[in-house]
């Protein structure tokens, strides 16, 4: 191994110049990884008039911001963004590249990994640096990419031992945001953008985007329902409960798959990770993927008719009973206590 410091890159996602939260979370995690590697943290910012955003990444410990700024790059575009990134990766061969597991990140990262033939792990719930022995070979300072797999019965640790660049995507909310109190202004390296005929193959005709209607991450109280709610009709009772106590409603993946609730309200590994003051899990069995998204809540109440449901292992208060009977009692009692 040579002595040039190992580089950790974070792709900074933006829409109309507004950064995605996940990018700063990744920079915070990237800073910790670079500390372990004695390496250098760099951000990659692609867009139009996004120099301020590039500067903002210094607050998270970025030593260098790689900036590609051009009117053609105002909006995310699969072909141009992926080409810019794989050319950069091929040229500088960073040790690690991190992407948000967003619509953009999941569209972009696989192409970059494919072109550079890098190992890529999706939806990691933890990242660590460690020396590893694999097939009787020693590898120093590999990125451990940790994620639940196969129905949540196992936690897999993935490595890319022979991949010059190791890539991973991480969902929003999984890594903690930690801006530095003291930071140094790093340097901005601007890379010129060269248009390519391939970019013209796809045109965005219309983009319709609403401000996020639900912001589960900011909700102090969350009422979440699972498959155990039984039906979409039964699910309505969660809205009554949420209305009474001032909460947002969310669901497990099983509830989303069953059509009880919309996907943007999904909690868990492939949904949102939350840390509210209170999380009320109703009819949720508590698979590891779900727990990955809510186990750091301050207080957890679990309501389930199966006393052996794994959700009871992470909750603070367990109520064994039928959700359709327990929740009305909860609402009544709450209204009564308020008086």
């Amino acid at each position, binding site marked *: 191994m040579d002595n040039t410091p190992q580089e950790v890159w974070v792709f900074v996602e933006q829409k109309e110049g507004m950064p995605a939260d996940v990018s700063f979370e990744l920079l915070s995690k990237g800073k910790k990884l670079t500390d372990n590697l004695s390496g250098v943290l760099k951000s990659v910012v692609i867009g139009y008039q996004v120099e301020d955003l590039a500067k903002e990444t210094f607050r998270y410990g970025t030593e260098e911001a790689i900036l590609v700024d051009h009117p053609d790059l105002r909006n995310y575009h*699969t072909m141009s963004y*992926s080409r810019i990134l794989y050319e950069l990766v091929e040229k500088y061969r960073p040790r690690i590249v991190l992407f948000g597991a967003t*619509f*953009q990140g*999941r*569209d972009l*990262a*696989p192409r970059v*990994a*494919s072109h550079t033939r*890098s*190992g*890529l*792990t*999706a939806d990691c719930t933890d990242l660590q640096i460690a020396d*590893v022995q*694999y097939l009787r070979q020693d590898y120093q300072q590999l990125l451990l990419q940790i994620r*639940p*797999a*196969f*129905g949540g*019965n*196992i*936690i*897999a*640790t993935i*490595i890319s*031992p022979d991949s010059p660049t190791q890539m991973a995507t991480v969902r929003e909310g999984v890594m903690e945001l930690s801006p530095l109190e003291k930071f140094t202004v790093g340097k901005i390296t601007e890379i010129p953008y060269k248009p390519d005929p*391939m970019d013209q*193959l*796809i*045109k*965005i*005709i219309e*983009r319709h*985007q*609403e401000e996020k*209607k639900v912001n589960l991450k900011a909700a102090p*109280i969350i009422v979440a329902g699972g498959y155990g709610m039984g039906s979409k009709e039964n699910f309505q009772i969660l809205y009554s409960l949420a209305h009474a106590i001032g909460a947002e409603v969310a669901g497990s993946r099983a509830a989303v798959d069953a059509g009880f609730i919309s996907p*943007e309200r999904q909690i868990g590994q492939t949904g949102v990770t939350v840390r509210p*003051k209170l999380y009320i899990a109703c009819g949720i069995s508590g698979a*590891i993927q779900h727990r990955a998204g809510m186990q750091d809540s301050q207080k957890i*109440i*679990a*309501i389930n008719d199966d006393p052996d449901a794994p959700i*009871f*292992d992470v*909750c603070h*208060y*367990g*109520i*064994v009973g*039928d959700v359709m*009977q*327990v929740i009305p*009692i909860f609402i*009544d*009692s*709450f209204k009564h*206590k308020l008086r």
Partner: protein
Amino acid sequence: MAFQSIVMVKQVPDTANISGQVMRPDGTVNRAKLPAIFNPEDKVALELALQIKDRHGGKVSAITMGPPKASEVLRECLYMGADAVYLISDRKFAGADTLATSYVLSEAIKKIGEYDLIFAGRQAIDGDTAQVGPQTAEKLGLPQITYAEEIINVKKPRVTVRRRIDGGYEIIESKMPVLITVIKEAAEPRPFKATRVMAYKNAKSLVELEEMTNANSLLYIDDLKEEFISRNLFIPTLTLDDFELDISRIGQSGSPTKVYKIDSVVLGVGEHIKIEPNKDGIGNLIEQLMENRIFG
């Protein structure tokens, strides 16, 4: 105006029914021990391709890479209306990650020939990575449209697609050929057609024919294969010998990502306070939460 579509499908373990016993020591799943199903979003992808054929004519081919057993999903593709199916199967392909998989799939697609559209499900339920679609597109030098929820218009040389993005949608126009990955809301897969089930239930891949000859010494593989081809019941199988592949890029050894460690999830012995499901129990809990300023 007819369109040639290729649909990439995958047989996946039904992840709802997995236990530790089906994992091999190296961390890969022993799929033979699991109930296997047609990956749901791939079925939606096939439906979209069939709808385009219904409206505009053309041909729909389905391909899958997997163990011999994966021909089960190819038969289901035939039941739904696919015109041709291809099994890509070789021991040497096994244990592939998304990069090695997309390499073999892209080479197979080059062999199958002309196409206007390639469809795939957004992701498979066993890994949820959503990587094989974009990586196949990249290897074929094609543009991609991921998270498609509606095909708005197809007219050579362009296709217009509505795709989901964070908090909304985008309408995208792409030149063909293009690879499109679809989400489950895009369409409701059609049921199997009884006449097609009758016609194709005996369709067999080469491996399945070999199994027949092994079980019955009166059968000869070459004769059998010829007979199945003539009855239009042969599922073509592409093995390593049918390609000129870079061996260093296939299978487990050609996969940059490795499963280093598998930890069974140990259920915590987390202590919690049991609350009775009645007025007193829940009332006390609410009081306690109010005191702790969780409420209010």
